[in-house]
């Protein structure tokens, strides 16, 4: 269960950063991206994925959340 930080980079793309794993990767898709439900399965550009327990509101980025390694990762 690493802490991951999700932020928008200079170009406005969403990236996921895991300090402990030196991972800084573009996010390709997020399962839930609605105003009232945000999170779920997050797929990265390198094919790996993380699971974030869905939040009840869209957060203001950047945000640090607990995430589980996804199945593909």
């Amino acid at each position, binding site marked *: 269960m690493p802490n991951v*930080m999700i*932020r928008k980079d200079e170009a406005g793309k969403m990236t996921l*950063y895991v300090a402990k794993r*030196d991972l800084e*990767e573009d996010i390709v898709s997020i399962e839930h991206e609605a105003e009232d439900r945000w999170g779920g399965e997050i797929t990265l*550009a*390198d094919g790996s994925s993380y699971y974030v327990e869905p939040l009840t509101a869209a957060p203001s980025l950047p945000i640090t959340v607990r995430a589980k390694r996804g199945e593909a990762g």
Partner: protein
Amino acid sequence: MSVMSRDEVESLIQEVLEVYPEKAKKDRTKHLTPNDHEVEQSKKCITSNKKSLPGVMTIRGCAYAGSKGVVWGPVKDMIHISHGPVGCGQYSRAGRRNYYIGTTGVNAFVTMNFTSDFQEKDIVFGGDKKLAKLIDEIETLFPLNKGVTIQSECPIGLIGDDIEAVAKKKTAEHGKTVVPVRCEGFRGVSQSLGHHIANDAVRDWVLSARDEDDSFETTPYDVAIIGDYNIGGDAWSSRILLEEMGLRVVAQWSGDGTIAEMELTPKVKLNLVHCYRSMNYISRHMEEKYKIPWIEYNFFGPTKTVESLRKIASHFDETIQQKCEEVIERYRPEWDAVIAKFRPRLEGKRVMLYVGGLRPRHVIGAYEDLGMEVVGTGYEFGHNDDYDRTIKEMGDATLLYDDVTGYEFEEFVKAVKPDLIGSGIKEKYIFQKMGVPFRQMHSWDYSGPYHGFDGFAIFARDMDMTLNNPCWKKLQAPWKKTEAAADEAVAASA
């Protein structure tokens, strides 16, 4: 020697690795690669931030070096205690040339060494009492200090001293910030984890000090310079450019910096990150907690400096952008003159770099401005995100080496035959004795600054001074010279 092809570089790597035992060879192969522009992610071609192999000569440091030497050390009005045996602090004292303004021993303490000088009894009975006494003594002897940091050396973690408790007690007693830093040397694989630990200590013990205090008058143009350690005055030659642009530099992290500046950094509008490797952690934290955006910039060489100044200006309004252009135009004649003078003397020369932090990629632009080519580069303690950023900067099929060993570096130099090497003090004399011009790119070889337009003039002069030094022609004894060379000498003297 002309430019090497990808196959040649690959066979060179294989050739160099030939002498290693099978297991070591397998491990080292992953750290060496020809650059490939088509690779988007560095982790597909190079492995980094892994434990060095036992038995090879690595050039890395430890977590204590990363925290005390790099991040905390330059904070000038705090006293940094090397907590543990005396050697770690004494042998690294003042080696990094972080310039600062102040009276050493009165209100600034960067080049001094404070240590708890652990003896056997401290290891056996614990050193907390000694530490408490030491902090009291510091208060008596140096009353103008603005705070104390406790930089742990290896034994502290091993014997389980509670430096946090001492820190809290002494903070309450003296009313000054006391920061315990758990940067024991055995943590992590290199100094890189020390940077991270130091960043976390800033976050936990310093950064939020003025969260409730609005008395600081802010302007819309407040910025902080993050990750500039003022080596040879680098931060100063960067700062004047930003100030001429109309920005207000509230804090310098951490070269010539103070604890007050650090505490005020959460009030700025934009964080400018020069050394990404050592200070991205705190920048990311400030972005999350205080919503301060951060951008990376590069002040080596006019091309990159201009690019960075415009990038910084684009985050502000038109007055700043206009002033930015004015600043660029004002300095243009200066750097044009530098290039006109030195480029003809340096054109086409090939450079190999092996340094740490940001320089393996940041200085490439400065060499290119002088018509030189970087044919090999590598990080002592870089991570994947550093190599991601490097792949784009380097030419295709140039050599990349991570945590290169002394042996590998020498062999690469023998094969690639660069005209100049930029690395550290430990490499300097080996390569000079091999007859290769060398510049220390950690401490700018006792020169500097190299940042900004003013720094570029010094950079160009230094490279010329080293490369075109007449001594390189005198390395061979006269009686060992070939006839052709001897004839030439006679002709020259006639």
